[in-house]
């Protein structure tokens, strides 16, 4: 049972880390995109 639990926890953690990294990166990029668009508007 211990082996199975370790396996399932490992797989779930790997996928969870991937999902969190995607969400965090998306948030950061969206903010950066807004800043850049504003910067460009100010420059013009």
């Amino acid at each position, binding site marked *: 049972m211990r082996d199975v639990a370790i396996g399932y926890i490992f*797989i779930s953690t790997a996928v969870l880390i991937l*999902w969190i990294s995607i*969400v965090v990166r998306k948030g950061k990029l969206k903010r950066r995109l807004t800043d850049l668009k504003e*910067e460009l508007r100010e420059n013009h």
Partner: protein
Amino acid sequence: MLKKSLGLASIVLMPIAVYLIFFYASTEKTMGIVQKIFYFHVPNALLSYASAILLGFASIMYLIKADRAWDRFGSVAGELGVVFTSTAIVSGMIWGKPAWGKYWVSWDVRLNLELILLLTFIAYLMLRAYLPNEEKRATLSCVFGLLAVLNIPFNWLSIYFLPTQHPQPVVSPGGGGLEPDMWIAFYVSFIAWFVLYGYLFVNRLEVAKLQEEVDYLEHKVRMA
């Protein structure tokens, strides 16, 4: 819409799959509880193949059309390939210890081909990280994309024709088969994993697109 549907479907299907695996499907007589790793191991291994096929397809399309959208598509497949090949290998090792007495059998062709697939995905991503020129990066990384997809037929057929300790196929042609309750748990788990993969793929693709937009605007701001 597609993203939301896939996300919702994953949230619903995953707990159902876990319930079916642990509380519905009967425990296999010879292997006991450790056999339950099979319900996650097989879909993850198939998703590692799917990643390689998507990466290979994207590489070929990029070489034909020189469209950066295909390069983006390939990079996402490569990234997901690292995750799902790793989970397939680790879950296989966890199963291997009680079944074979050791985590890794060095001469086993199937195991080594899966490891080579993981290394190919990693090499693909490393190459992309080190090459600053976008066009050069996209073209050269296609080589690794094609190497990844070349691995798949050998990997798939290795248990039929080459020396391996890996169990003979259960779900593919010529397989030993499963009990009906095991089939249900397997199919639900299989669908849940493929839906989750689709959800992650669509989201990661969106991130890649955003990154390109940011890079373009940063360049524009510098030039202004």
